[in-house]
């Protein structure tokens, strides 16, 4: 089951440049929350703060409170443990190129010391079925490299890899921006099914995509969260002028 996300007064910096200002928001469990906004507004930085990927960049830091269910992200838990509970899918598909399809999916578990082969087989199959890739790869699981798949397949492989560690939250940073419409459709369909099991936060450049997959949408501008509301409301009657300007295409 997914858990809700609570963010309080989150600030983030790259060196001396502040990238996020006092973000406070909530994302409810088992729903998808979309983050939209123009390039450079801090969308990616925001989701990367949720699982502390932000701090892997030299000189980057963040302050404030993030709670994933009962888990306090910035207090008392190591970043490594946090990331095992929060899966992440990146903008460009990034399978491990020297690993087979099977090993790619099993990587998160194997590298953390889990070696029960029977259970691994089970988890790999279940994860690939969840990400709707199983039928396309089941005959070449161990023979082919993850890098040999097509772009859309690679992205679904990366989703399967993230699901295999059984996270409670799935963060997706523009997961479809490198994919064609057919692959995008498949992944959007997938997001719909995944909501039953996970809480999803998805960054997207594509406003139609946000309205298709997400119940809630947040609009970011220049590092600030301008407004967050039900998706229909954001796209029909936003309460802030800047949101309206953005969704009607007046800028951005």
């Amino acid at each position, binding site marked *: 089951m997914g858990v809700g996300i609570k963010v309080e007064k989150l600030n983030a910096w790259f060196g001396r440049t502040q990238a996020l200002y006092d973000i406070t928001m909530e994302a409810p469990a088992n729903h998808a929350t979309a983050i939209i906004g123009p390039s450079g507004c801090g969308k990616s930085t925001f989701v990367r703060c949720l*699982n502390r*990927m932000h701090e*892997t960049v*030299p000189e980057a830091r963040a302050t404030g409170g993030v709670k994933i269910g009962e888990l306090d992200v910035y207090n008392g838990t190591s970043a*490594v*443990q*946090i*990331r*095992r*509970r929060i*899966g*992440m899918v*990146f903008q*460009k598909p*990034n*399978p*491990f*190129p*020297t*690993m*087979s399809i099977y090993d790619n999916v099993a*990587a*998160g578990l194997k*590298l*953390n010391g889990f070696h029960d082969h029977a259970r691994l087989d089970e988890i790999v199959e279940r994860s690939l079925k969840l990400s709707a890739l199983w039928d396309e790869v089941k005959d*070449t699981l161990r*023979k*082919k*490299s993850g*890098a*040999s*798949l097509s772009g859309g397949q690679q992205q679904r492989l*990366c989703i399967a*890899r*993230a699901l295999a*560690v059984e996270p409670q939250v799935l963060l997706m940073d523009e997961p479809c921006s490198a994919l064609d419409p057919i692959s995008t459709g498949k992944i959007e369909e997938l997001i719909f099914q995944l909501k039953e099991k996970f809480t999803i936060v998805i960054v997207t450049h594509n406003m139609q995509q946000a309205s298709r997959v997400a119940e809630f949408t947040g609009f970011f501008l220049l590092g600030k969260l301008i407004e967050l509301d039900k998706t229909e409301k954001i796209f029909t009657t936003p309460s802030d002028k800047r949101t309206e300007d953005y969704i009607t295409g007046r800028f951005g």
Partner: protein
Amino acid sequence: MPETASANSEVATAPISLWRRGSDLLATAAAAAAVVLVLLPLGAVFGYLVYKGIGSINWAFLTQTPKPVGEAGGGMANAIAGSAFILLIASVIGVPIGIGAGIYLAEYGRNQFGNVIRFTADVLNGVPSIVVGIVAYAIVVLTQGHFSALAGGVALAIMMIPTITRTTEEMLLLVPNAVREAAYGLGVSRWRTTLSITLRTATSGVITGVMLAFARVAGETAPLLFTAFGNQYWNWKINQPTAALSLQIFSYAISPFDEWHRQAWAGALILIVLIVAAVSAVRIVAGRGMLKGAN
């Protein structure tokens, strides 16, 4: 715009001028000539070695130790084994240190200390091999009190380390950051990511670096002169003077005896063949685990 389109179609359908075709041909020919020039010395050296050396290679040459001057026959078996022994010692010392330093530079060394190591490695790469021999002599031979296989191995290891370090670093930096992030995102710790993901992704490049370093030191003579020293007999003890092919070739080549000259040619041929064989063997073994579509 129609004008651009017509201008473009005019360009596209115009016959290719004689000058363009000529310069294309010329550039292709120049590139081909450069390839021949690069391969020619290699072919010439190998051909001449075969021509001069093949006649002296026989079963005895590969299985017997040298005979005293004036006696016909004898071989370089102990030198072949000694070279392998010294190179094994050098690799055991040099490969882990070199790869470890390369990992440090690529993954943690974006700082002043890293720059110092990088500079040191580059300088070490340019130090004449005889000087490296003297260093090994001072460190190992003087402390032990006698020449030894270990001293030879240490000298060659010192020569291998900078090459391995720098190539390992470069190969690791070629691994896209997205691959590291994928592992971090799964909750894999940094050191585990470095060893199981980054290093594994760069394996074939790192192996190339190791083989390059290995092949370079395999034929070194100067650093062995006063470390491994040479030996007319078999030796398998790590702290005893040991024969090496390059040393044997050197001492036979400067001797006044025709028979020894012939044996030196044969030894040189064997040395080159063994280096090529070792490098190819590692390549094949390392390439066996490769998957379809992996890059």
